[in-house]
């Protein structure tokens, strides 16, 4: 579904991604873990062209999306993204947040978009919050609205950029549960996360990144419990301590 070949990205002098190769199959859940600065978020943001890649190629369902043939909105209509800071539109209600893009990008009618929006918000457990503005919602609720908003565009794949890192601990579970359900329904997901429990339970594959390269990748049981690389075990040692 999503294939990265030799992906490289620099910010000025700093090489953030160094020749990455990754293949995410349809319906697969891939969790990307690693220390901050390893390039995990940048990787995600290159997939939907939020950041332009310097070198390398990215393929979405076999179509190359780097190289200028397709513009950013081609990709973004097919790949949804959920952000660490939620980024909900504060001047719109939950329902309006969810229905805006389908109406203005896909051209759906208001009735159609809102009906679909209501269903999605119900699915993430927020049926009673459809007319609330983001400032009246908890972090966990806002993030679930963000998930519904991304799903409203009917993406083929979803990108999650540390979506629980900004949440109070007691609100993390509700978001992870929503993501778990999505995974069970067969969504292709690329998840950057620090939640090792989630990675262990839900991921089909775990990828450990450090310093712009993939150090190790494999089934969660392998990478998380029997890492081959020293860097991996060092990182896991730090993370799993608490």
């Amino acid at each position, binding site marked *: 579904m999503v294939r990265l070949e030799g992906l490289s990205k620099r910010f000025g002098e700093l090489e953030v991604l160094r020749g990455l190769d990754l293949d995410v199959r349809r319906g697969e859940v891939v969790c990307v873990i690693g220390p901050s600065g390893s390039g995990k978020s940048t990787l995600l943001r290159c997939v939907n062209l939020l950041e332009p890649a310097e070198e390398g190629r990215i393929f979405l369902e076999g179509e190359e999306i780097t190289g200028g043939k397709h513009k950013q*909105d081609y990709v973004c209509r097919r790949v949804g993204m959920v952000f660490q800071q939620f980024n*909900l*539109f504060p001047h719109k209600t939950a329902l309006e947040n969810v229905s805006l893009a389908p109406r203005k990008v896909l051209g759906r009618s208001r009735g159609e978009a809102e009906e679909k929006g209501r269903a999605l918000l119900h699915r993430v457990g927020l049926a009673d919050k459809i007319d609330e503005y983001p400032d009246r919602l908890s972090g966990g609720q806002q993030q679930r609205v963000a998930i519904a908003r991304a799903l409203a565009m009917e993406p083929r794949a979803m990108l999650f950029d540390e979506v629980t890192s900004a949440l109070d601990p007691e609100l993390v579970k509700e978001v992870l549960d929503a993501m778990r359900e999505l995974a069970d329904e067969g969504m292709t997901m690329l998840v950057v996360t620090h939640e090792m429990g989630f990675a262990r339970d839900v991921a089909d594959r775990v990828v450990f990144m450090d310093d712009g390269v993939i150090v190790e990748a494999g089934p969660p049981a392998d990478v998380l419990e029997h890492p081959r690389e020293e860097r991996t075990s060092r990182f896991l040692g730090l993370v799993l301590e608490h």
Partner: protein
Amino acid sequence: MDVFIDQYFDLTIMRENLGLILDAFWETIQLAVIGAALALVWGLVLALIRLAPGRPAAPARALAIAYIDVMRGIPLLLVVLLISGSFPFLDFLPQWLRAPSFFGKLDIFWYGILALTLTYGAYFAEVYRAGIEAVPRGQTEASRSLGMNHRTNLRYVVVPQAVRKVIPPMLNDFIALMKDTSLIQVIGVVEVVRQGREIQAETFNSSALTLAAILFILVTIPLARIVDRQIARQQIRFQRG
């Protein structure tokens, strides 16, 4: 002290000239409201041109920057005189533009409106730009990741938020504009300051001007309070997310 009251608060003079002053104030209001409305639209256009992305838009951006710099750098009075002095002679312009008389208002009125629009459009453009740039980048990232293009993002996500943010500085600029309408008197428009000045000359007394001042304050202070309340309500809404 009595002399002070006589000079500035002679109620008889105020009463006798109330009609004239109110008529002239109505002229002030029309200049201010129409001028501001057009300047708000023109300012937004300028700001969007200034912020247009991509290399092909560079000449347009440069023009917008030059325009804004120039119009913020020269006095409104100069602009008023530049327009009124020479427009009648610009024979490449159609007559209805050279000496406009829309809605029965004199051409000098419309020259004043044009001057206000061209000048304050530049000030508003910079306020809009600050507002647009103050909208967090995450908002644009979210819109783009939902497939919205630059224009859709601006229209439904960024500009609505920017406009709410810039209401206080806009209000300040509107009040400045309203006060600057008094400059249009030099080309013959009888707005409230001009009217007060004429009465002052006739009566050797400033009470009509005091009345004009009171009318200004009666408009600007409530406006400020209404906007304060709007801001407080919006503030809460933008706290989270």
